[in-house]
């Protein structure tokens, strides 16, 4: 296979990552942030699945396995995130991350 194909696919996942990062940088709403993070993580998942296609290496964790694990992990993360959102919401009645700036300088 040629680098060209690699470039295409990596370009795709990179775009996915970019979207995620963009979301993380621009969104102030915690929920939206969580979504953005999900997107970013899934870029990695996509890569694993894709590269697993022609992994010539001596094995170890196979790409698919890694992908599945990461998906699970992402779920856990979001769960934790939601917990924090709830607490935050209860605390200050807002989930705008830009408002929580008592710790600074």
């Amino acid at each position, binding site marked *: 296979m040629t*680098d060209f194909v*690699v470039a295409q696919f*990596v370009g795709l*996942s990179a775009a996915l*990552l970019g979207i*995620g*990062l963009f979301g*993380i940088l621009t969104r102030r709403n*915690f929920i939206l*942030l969580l979504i953005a*993070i999900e997107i*970013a*993580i899934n*870029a*990695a*998942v*996509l*890569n*694993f699945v*894709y*590269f*697993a296609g*022609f*992994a*010539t*290496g*001596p*094995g*170890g*964790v196979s*790409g698919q396995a*890694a992908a599945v*694990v*990461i998906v699970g*992990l992402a779920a*856990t*993360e979001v769960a*934790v*995130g939601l*917990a*924090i959102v709830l*607490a*935050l919401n*209860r*605390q*200050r009645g807002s989930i705008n*991350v830009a408002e*929580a*700036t*008592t*710790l*600074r*300088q």
Partner: protein
Amino acid sequence: MDPVSWTWFLPEAFLLGAALLVFLLDVLGVEKLEAFGAVAVGATALSLLAVVADLGFTPLSFLSTLPPSVVDSGGGATSLYAFSSLGLVFQGVFLSSALLVSLASLSRPSHEKGAAVFYGLLLMATLGMMLVAVSADLIFLLLAIEVTGIATYLMVGYTRKDARGLEAAMKFYIIGALSTALSFFGASLLFGAFGSTNLLVLSQGLGGISNHSLALVGYAFLIVGLGFKVTLVPFHAWAVDVYDGAPTDVSAFLAGGTKKMGVFAFFLVFIGPLSILTVRAVNCTGTVCIAPYDFRPTVELTLGLLAIVTMTLGNVLALLQKEMKRMLAYSSISQAGYMMIGIAIGTAPALAGATLQILAHVFMKAGAFLVVAGVSALGVGPLIAQYRGLGQRRPYLGVAFALMLLSLAGIPLTVGFVSKFILFSAAVQASTVAGQSFFFWLAVAGLLNSALSVFYYARVLKVMYMESPDASVPLDGPAGDPTGGLGYGRSAAILLAVVAIVALGVYPQPVFSAIQAAATHFVASGA
């Protein structure tokens, strides 16, 4: 290597069991903090002893859980975990920081809400770090890191009442998740480049590489993702707020424990012969040959520069810091810079120096945070200025704190001095090799930084000793309490830290030679 035996993982098992026990007790309605604490202390102490035994400390050999043949035999190209003696050393580091924190936390108000959660999470986080120390596969490594990560997110905000803690947790979580995404992305690219995520494969390029710029990008992502844990500048911003906002004992754990986990992750990924030249030559059949590529110089340069930036900025930012906890946070950022020097150089001596520095940092930085926690429990702080006269009113506590600060500043007869001395000696020694003069300037930068850092540590000493205490500050704690309001657990933890600082500062030989041996193995076997 021998067939896998479940006993190898006894230390980890202790922790897991203890964590579950704690949660169980909680469910059973036990409310006494001391109970949970006892469990945690016991488990950490026990597994610490086991790890020490595994390191070949004969007096404790009856506790050892690993057959010597397993240690440093190096993981295969397919194995998920491998026991390196350096890894065991790091397990020791993690466990001792956990031990200090859980010991100190015994002195928190009994019946405090969420004590079970705190101890349970502490144990879980420690478990994650233990796994990092034995992992031999990138995915396994990142997962272990995540275990710790998730546990610590929650630890920071576990009280759910205090706004600062929650805010800190939020920030910690967001940046942490971001870095997770980045490191997994990097891992995926490496998987693409090498066709495997096994660290041995990665570090030695077994099985060839399809595209080295892919691998380069992957490594770049990993540097960022792991740099977050190690609080390299510019991935450090979260740390200050989190250390500041988190319950101080948790800050102690973060500074003393999880950061070190990040450093070891760096060891695993970036140390060892990061060059695939030779390999490339044999695998050049069939597929297109790509020009051989040596990652090492690039990584060295990048990590070196990051180290310099981190040290300098950490110190500069700490210079005028008014709050004690934030000052300590910045100082621990700059300390991360020193550790990175070792990684950038990557010779066995440098590695040993960095490891000693890490061990030292557990006692001095975690110790300092524990003192701060105790003092603020008396109602002092958060400003440095409020520590006025501490040294005069509480001579023993003052001496302990002063020792920790002096050790951080690298003043002789403290472990902080020895570790820096050895680390920089290693740098100079490495620089004598032709073409590596860059390392000499790393050493110079490090030493100048330690000189700069003296400024703000000395400022604290000045406040503690040279300014008269104001009566309003309740420094003396409740009357009749021999520990002056610190509580026995905390006093014990502080005493432990001080003893370690002085003992290792005066006679580091036994510990250091062990570390040196481990480091030598590590570099030789390449993880």
